[in-house]
């Protein structure tokens, strides 16, 4: 602050001024155009159009997922094409189909194995809330064990609904702030925790 009040200083007063000085220098050296932006905006723009998805497909919604991924609806048009069958290489967890009590710890493990940044897509009524199944065997929505970014209900959802959900997720990704320490969400405060199976 003391610098900016000093009239004798040769350094620019603000970030904006420094940037414009750099732009003038760039034009003087023969450049013909430039655009200013924020790091967040560029990173998020890259992220939202290059989703690598992990298809966690357990039930009949899988057929609808194949339809979305296939040439007629073609999720590739939205930059979300490549299924990676390793959670280490993917950043969108597509949970498609009923998650049972026995399957839930596996889903949690796959989520935990994914590197940040990562997003979760709840595909279908069962994944969102348990759907028609309210019994001892079915998890009542995956948001009881992992954080969910977008819910697409339906039994199964229409491909158009899935594409709409994906575009909503992309809008959300674009609006995110990129914090210095990385993007991380805890799962400790979610309602259900996985009890470790005793090793035999």
């Amino acid at each position, binding site marked *: 602050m003391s610098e900016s009040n000093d009239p004798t200083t040769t350094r620019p007063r603000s970030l904006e001024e420094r940037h414009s000085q750099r732009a003038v220098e760039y034009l003087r050296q023969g450049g013909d155009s430039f655009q200013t932006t924020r790091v967040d905006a560029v990173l998020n723009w890259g992220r939202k159009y290059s989703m690598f998805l992990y298809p966690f497909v357990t039930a009949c919604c899988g057929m609808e997922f194949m339809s979305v991924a296939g040439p007629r609806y073609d999720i590739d048009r939205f930059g979300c094409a490549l299924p990676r069958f390793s959670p280490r290489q993917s950043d969108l967890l597509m949970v498609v189909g009923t998650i049972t009590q026995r399957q839930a710890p596996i889903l949690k493990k796959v989520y935990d194995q994914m590197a940040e940044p990562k997003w979760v897509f709840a595909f279908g009524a069962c994944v969102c809330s348990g759907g028609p199944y309210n019994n001892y065997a079915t998890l009542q929505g995956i948001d009881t064990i992992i954080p969910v970014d977008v819910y697409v209900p339906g039994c199964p959802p229409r491909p158009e609904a899935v594409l709409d959900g994906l575009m909503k997720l992309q809008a959300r990704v674009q609006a995110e702030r990129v914090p210095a320490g990385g993007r991380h969400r805890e799962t400790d405060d979610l309602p259900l925790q996985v*009890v470790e199976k005793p090793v035999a």
Partner: protein
Amino acid sequence: MDDCGSPVLRRLLEALPDAVEETHARLGDATARVGRSRIVEVLQLLRDDPELEFEMLTDLTAVDYLGEEPRFEVVYHLYSVAKNHRVRIKARVAEDAPEIESAVALWPSANWMEREVWDLYGIHFRNHPDLRRILLYEQFDGHPLRKDYPKEKRQPLVGPRN
């Protein structure tokens, strides 16, 4: 007791008349309800008698008649490949002592089916070689196909080491 025109029931009633409590053949399915304590005797006869030869146990399951006494019913479906005939055997099991003799010694296929009945109904099979839960997990509390199992009850999630 009536054999309902079934040669299988006729033979059963002839050999063990005091074990059979009730018979019927509704919709053409010969059925006999027998005493719980006589079940192995009855099944043994059905398997080994040269007129019956039920060498195959097609199904073993249970029904919970909540409010009736005795509460449970264990159901055996038998089939004879040699004679091409079927029979259904039932035995009532009380709630306060939900147990019955195992049929594994007669048909090895009873092993997993009895484990399933134990898992979901909590009916204990005496002399079963390995009576553990088969579909659910050890930490599961209760037997969910019993009619008085609360629908909203939630169980712990038990998974592999993370």
